[in-house]
């Protein structure tokens, strides 16, 4: 327990977390500090490219082992099934409509790539290796949860519609394409490719992550400030409970699949994290009746900071205890 606390403590005192806290504090204090939209998008493109590329290089270096396919399947399953669980919990804990609950559920079945990146950083800081293809697992987990959520709405008599273009739009959304594409480039060009561009995608990575988290903090803080009163205690409780449940399932599946300690932690983080980029946009198209203030506040305002600060060290500690690693 002590160790978990000290782990969490040392996690908190990192430039990355503090940058997020700075952004959140600035937004809550109503500072006019903002990062231009184009710069924020540019940083997210950089991060997706870098993380995808490095994952691909890792796979090209260590080869495709038997667990890769199983990990991808585990990711798919998680993304399909977690929304059902999240939906059930939301219906019990909160008074959200079926549509709102389904929309929130879609976010929690999907993933947050920045949480994933932050977890990777923490593992690196502790010299814990992880399977490079976990990036690919992240990619396959982005979309399926959306389908589950639409199915949930349809089942509740709602009008979520998967119209012609939507499926393609979801599967080919920019972040999936960039992540998978960079992964492929990394896998094809391998160490040699990495060497050519590592001064761009490896060395400055953490610093860019700091500025990006500053921006996430600004947006999360602004969201919290503006959505005061929208959320009940039940919903906020959900946003902390669900990551823990998700990570526990991720832990079980990760062990079943035979991942390393690092890989298990990353799968836990993927399960625990909630989307705030790809899924919100899809929800505006597919479930326009769902209230964005609810799902964005829960995902970005509560779950994201929770995972970033307490969640990641907690999942790591749990994995270490359970695997004895």
């Amino acid at each position, binding site marked *: 327990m002590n160790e978990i606390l000290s782990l969490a403590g040392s996690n908190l005192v990192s430039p990355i977390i503090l940058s997020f806290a700075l952004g959140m504090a600035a937004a809550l204090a109503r500072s006019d500090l903002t*990062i231009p939209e184009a710069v924020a998008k540019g940083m997210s493109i950089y991060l997706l490219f870098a993380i995808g590329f490095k994952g691909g290089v890792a796979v090209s270096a260590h080869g495709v082992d038997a667990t890769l396919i199983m990990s991808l399947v585990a990711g798919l399953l998680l993304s399909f099934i977690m929304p059902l669980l999240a939906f059930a919990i939301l219906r019990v804990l909160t008074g959200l409509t079926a549509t709102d609950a389904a929309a929130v559920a879609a976010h929690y079945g999907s993933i947050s790539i920045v949480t994933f990146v932050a977890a990777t950083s923490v593992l690196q800081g502790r010299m814990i290796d992880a399977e490079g293809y976990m990036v690919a697992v992240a990619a396959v987990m982005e979309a399926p949860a959306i389908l589950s959520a639409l199915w949930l709405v349809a089942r509740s008599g709602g009008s979520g519609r998967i119209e012609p273009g939507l499926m393609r739009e979801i599967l080919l959304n920019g972040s999936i394409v960039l992540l998978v594409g960079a992964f492929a480039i990394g896998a094809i060009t391998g160490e040699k490719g990495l060497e050519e561009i590592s001064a761009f995608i490896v060395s400055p990575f953490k610093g860019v992550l700091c500025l990006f988290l500053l921006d996430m903090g600004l947006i999360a803080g602004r969201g919290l400030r503006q959505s005061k009163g929208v959320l009940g205690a039940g919903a906020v409780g959900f946003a902390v409970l669900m990551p823990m449940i998700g990570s526990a399932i991720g832990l079980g599946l990760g062990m079943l699949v035979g991942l390393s300690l690092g890989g298990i932690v990353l799968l836990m983080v993927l399960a625990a994290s909630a989307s705030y980029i790809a899924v919100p946009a899809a929800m505006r198209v597919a479930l326009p009746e769902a209230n964005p203030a609810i799902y964005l506040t829960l995902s970005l305002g509560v779950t994201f900071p929770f995972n970033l600060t307490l969640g990641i060290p907690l999942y790591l500690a749990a994995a270490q205890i359970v695997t004895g690693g």
Partner: protein
Amino acid sequence: METHIAKRVEIVIEAPLERRLAEALNTAGVTGYTILPVLGGSGRSGKWSREGQVGRAGMVAFVCLIRPDRLDGLLDAAFTVVDKHIGVVSITDAQVLRAERF
């Protein structure tokens, strides 16, 4: 200079629907429009701002100049997309140069 009567339709709609609105307009035979970026705004669903956003957040504004007799087709098409979504539609009387283009 000779001008011709037209309608100026302005549709402020959520960015994730941009492609759909463009397609609906196209289907209705409206192939001329201009899309303006929107920085932020306020409405019944609260305030929002584009700043720092990473996803496809916020709104965009479509501006269509159209011959008056084609207005109804345009509005019907736009309405199928805007309907349940956040967004506003306004129409102004206008005049245009080079009427053959509309």
